[in-house]
């Protein structure tokens, strides 16, 4: 008797969630951060609605400080699949000099990412946004439902979460409120990597090790991705073999030194690593329970 593997089950579950939300929401969107989880989300979405084209656009909240390789990857995927891409950027804050080097990280994140996400959702009237969040990532995510409701101010209230039973998702919502949908809720980091390998999903090359110009700063290895990064006195760009476990704004993304230049060896290193995945992200270095707090403010 044919039996499904656990990845086939996870894939089927995610596709089911994508279809339910599309069937019941008025104006859905896929939040596309170009990272590995977003890449899996896009792949699943293309599968869920084939042979029809993707029935929703992609939304990229561009801080202006994404790795160049991320933007190239984004544009390549959009062209390959004929996708509709919306890019949201805070021109005003950027013009006022808000940048990841001199602006305190929580302020920078709020102005360039969180507030922009909210502005884009409001501007386009999206009532459901798909995100690549997984429950194994963080304690607050572990308690979030697959369909997570946000009030008109985009705030999450963990105390009023709806019961979510079986494969039944209640996507009805009062006017003005919206849904963040997490089809990857039940995936783990290993599942994501294994699925990328099995399905040959294109990912940003920065996930694989290569020699890249770097500096060591505040305990993190940062990649000098363009000449906007001013070197501090005493700093020189050093070429190191590095890769990234998570991607975002390059001045806030810490690299790991590695020679793993294939998916198998990346997975091997990840499984042997004694440090958790989000450690490379400056945005998560806020006090404990900060994710819960950020979600209450409207962060994905």
């Amino acid at each position: 008797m044919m039996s499904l593997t656990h990845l086939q089950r996870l894939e089927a579950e995610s596709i089911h969630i994508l279809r339910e939300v599309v069937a019941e929401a008025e104006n859905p969107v896929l939040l596309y951060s170009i990272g590995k989880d977003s890449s899996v989300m896009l792949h699943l979405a293309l599968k869920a609605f084939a042979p029809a084209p993707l029935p929703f656009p992609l939304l990229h909240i561009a801080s202006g400080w994404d790795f160049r390789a991320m933007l190239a990857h984004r544009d390549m995927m959009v062209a390959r699949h004929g996708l509709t891409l919306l890019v949201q950027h805070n021109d005003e804050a950027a013009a006022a000099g808000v940048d990841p080097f001199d602006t305190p990280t929580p302020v920078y994140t709020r102005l360039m990412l969180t507030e922009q996400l909210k502005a884009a959702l409001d501007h386009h009237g999206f009532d459901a946004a798909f995100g690549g969040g997984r429950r194994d990532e963080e304690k607050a995510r572990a308690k979030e439902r697959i369909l997570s409701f946000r009030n008109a101010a985009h705030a999450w209230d963990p105390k009023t979460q709806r019961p979510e039973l079986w494969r039944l998702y209640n996507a009805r919502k009062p006017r003005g409120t919206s849904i963040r949908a997490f089809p990857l809720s039940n995936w783990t980091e290993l599942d994501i990597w294994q699925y990328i390998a099995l399905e040959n999903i294109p990912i940003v090359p920065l996930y694989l090790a290569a020699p890249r110009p770097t500096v060591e700063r505040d305990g993190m290895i940062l990649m000098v991705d363009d000449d906007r990064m001013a070197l501090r006195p005493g700093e020189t760009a050093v070429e190191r073999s590095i890769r990234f476990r998570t991607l975002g704004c390059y001045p806030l993304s810490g690299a790991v030194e590695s020679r793993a230049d294939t998916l198998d060896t990346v997975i091997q290193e990840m499984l042997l690593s004694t440090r958790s995945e989000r450690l490379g992200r400056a945005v998560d270095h806020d006090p404990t329970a900060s994710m819960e707090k950020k979600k209450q403010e409207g962060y994905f």
Partner: protein
Amino acid sequence: MDASGFAPDPLIASDIAAYLAAQQAKALIRVITCGSVDDGKSTLIGRLLHDTHQIFDDQMAALTSDSQRIGTQGQAIDFALLVDGLAAEREQGITIDVAYRFFSTPRAKFIIADCPGHEQYTRNMVTGASTADAAIVLVDARKGVLTQTRRHSYLVQLLGIRHVVLAVNKMDLVGYDQAVFDAIVADYQAFAASIGLADVSAVPISGLGGDNVIAAAPAMPWYAGPPLLGLLEGLDVSDDAAAARPFRMAVQWVNRPDLDFRGFAGLVNHGRVRPGDAVRILPAGRTTTIARIVTADGDLDEAVAGQSVTLTLADDVECARGSVIAAAEAPPTVAGQFEATLVWMAEEPLLPGRSYLLKLATQTVAATIQPPKFAINVNTLEQVAAKTLELNGIGTVQLATAQPIVFEPYADSRDLGGFILIDRASDATVAAGMIHFALRRSQNIHLQAVDISRDAHAAQKGQKAKVLWLTGLSGAGKSTIANLVEKQLHLLGRHTFLLDGDNVRHGLNKDLGFTDADRIENIRRVGEVARLMTDAGLIVITAFISPFRAERAMVRAMMAPGEFMEIHVDTPLAAAEARDVKGLYKKARAGQLKNFTGIDSPYEAPDAPELRIDTTMMSAEDAAMLIVESLIG
């Protein structure tokens, strides 16, 4: 305790390809943990994560510092802090919401739903239990089987979880005494048998010390069975049973990129399907055959339970979201009335007669619920009389849906037997339900086809049927305006009928009072009468306070699209009370009249009425003229 929480499988370093291949063959087991407050659930889960090496160094460092700062175990590691994720939980030292945790062993992958033990959070436990293959029921060895243990075990049985592992925790605090363990197990087994839990195994553990969690405990040589993790790894969670049942797939979405392709997307609920198989499309009932099984990776020769696919059909038959494609020779039941068990999950209690939305698989229909046949006292499991169900209440009810739905008994199918109820005003999920069976009368009553259609009735009168639904506070002027509207329409040669609140309550509804439930039934009956009159082609004018949005939405849903015109006769409470034509406000203020709208019973104003009449700005005559104009155009 181990020095480090992290020790990876040696195969990862020696042969990553072999390790990854082995991952693919592992079963995925979904488990819930349940028990009373302080039974040590979070500690046990933290221990499972730690001892299966899922805790990274940085998490361990955070845990160590958190334990010193806010832990409850003195200087020792407080494993509960690994899972008590929300700030509110840490402040109160309790778990509020279901948390999902992941770990894997060389034999299986696990998703653990950590379910809070508090009475008020039963709905979270039901959420966690609905997708679980197995339940760990935790009991404190010092306390034995408690009320909460029984409540949770009953829910485990109700939600149809196949396997139960009784973990008698804190054995270290009873001197690892076998007699204590044996007594608790005997007590629990007797209870489990009485509620129909068949597969129960038991293990004595100490979550704090790790005894019998993943490895055998030297302190309890008298226990010969496997440790907790071994018991879980040994469970049979294959869905061969689902695959062996007749084929069903609830259609989620119609895939129609162009005129040449029309596919039906869904997840195969049961059974297997191949091109050429004969299928019946329910509830419409036409039969056809499967043409193709389409996926992004190419067509399949066969799809089985659990797969998400897109099916195409050989014939152009009626099929849409909500339809169920089923094996032609063994189709599921289609009915509009059932008996079911409800778990009520909202603060606002069940209102019998109110129209809720029922969602089952991909079908969403209006449904009304009869007063419970009985409720279950989950502490004693006795059946008790009940007029409603309160938050966390469980009872057996009869439901009627506005249209027949396709379903199977919950005992046969979680997908097609489990449903939720949704409040129409707040859109909140208010209840979970499990269908037992269809009521005979719903299968035996069929709508009588009539030869003179409703359109023919209306056409003969030279008009379109319509319901002019006037809603507003007592004393707003509804009856006055309604009378004027009818007079004008009559003069214009229209065929009308006026249904007035006071008049109906003297006859058709004289058995009803003014409680919320009776008000709902009052409006339901008026709605049904108005619908029959629209069938006869009449323009129906109604004047009822009809204070609740949900009931006005229910009546609107009874009518054809565009037929229902909601008119808000809007008068401020103070103005209506100042008029007080019938002296009712005075009585209500004096406490002689209970449940009076505006005084001690709410009026929910329409959000988007077709017409709003501001009686402070407009005379009754002008209002009537405005209504007639908007009707005649």
